[in-house]
């Protein structure tokens, strides 16, 4: 280990502001990016599932009332 104490490590020989400022912003961005992607993915999956289920329900209703020969996007 190169450092003598934690304070020594945090001070970075009077360059603490610059070193930790770099580390902080890099960490925020590199943790934030995958979290944003996961959130977007969940939104997309939820939206598509809702849409597919609605289409299936429509399809069943149309089949019961004998309208199944209509084009899918007629409603």
């Amino acid at each position, binding site marked *: *280990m*190169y*450092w003598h104490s934690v304070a020594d*490590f945090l001070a*970075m*020989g*009077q*360059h603490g502001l*610059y*070193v930790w*400022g*770099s*580390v902080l*912003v*890099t960490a925020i*961005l*590199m943790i934030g*990016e*995958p979290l944003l*992607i*996961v959130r*977007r*993915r969940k939104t*997309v*999956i939820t939206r*598509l*599932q809702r*849409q*597919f*289920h609605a289409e*299936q329900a429509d399809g069943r209703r149309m089949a019961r009332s004998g309208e199944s020969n209509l084009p899918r996007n007629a409603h």
Partner: protein
Amino acid sequence: MSHRLIHWFRYASPQSFYPLAGKMIPWFWLLAALFGIAGLSIGFLFAPTDAQQGEGYRIIFLHVPASWMSMFIYLVMAFWAAIGLTFNTRLSGMMASALAPTGALFTFISLWTGALWGKPMWGTWWVWDARLTSELILLFLYIGFIALQAAIDDPRRADKAGAILALVGVVNIPIIYFSVKWWNTLHQGASVSLTRSPSMALMMLWGMLLCALACWMYAIAVALMRARTIMLERERHTEWVHNLLTERHGQAR
């Protein structure tokens, strides 16, 4: 030979690429974490101080890997764009779109850490010299690519327009890389190059290379995650997306 070709084209369809990417992502995250922990502990805990720059030089372990990635991701993005233009494959455009935000992120990290490194060493946050300016143009190219694609509703047309912008922008990459040779700049020359032995202590070099590997693994993992989401959005009218999200109620993530 022909078998191998068929094999590759099979994975070029989103339908077979989607589950494959899903299996690969955790492994790339694991590798990114291992390389990252190793590289950062060498860089921040064990590497000796720099004779000229003191402890401030440790920004190198973030700055150099991010700068390498910013250029390399652009090349990969332009490669996929070129493949998409030539062979009109669906996957290529999705890969190019998936890479752009990550490339922009690394470019921003490169500029940010560079400014924080420049202040104590050069006495200024920013100078309009060749290396810094061309890296800033790279950020604008990424943002331009993302904005152009977002402005066009039809994804296939957006892919084509973006691909042309990406390919024209490739000219900037050698300008960034060789700027410290071609012009007199405040920015120092390359610490590591392919043609001569590195001008830095071995432990510093290892820390930097491990951090760069971690950034590689991170970029692949993140790009695959984003590509999978783009696939679901763009292929929502196809049967495989429909089956994937209805039959198993979205458990196949």
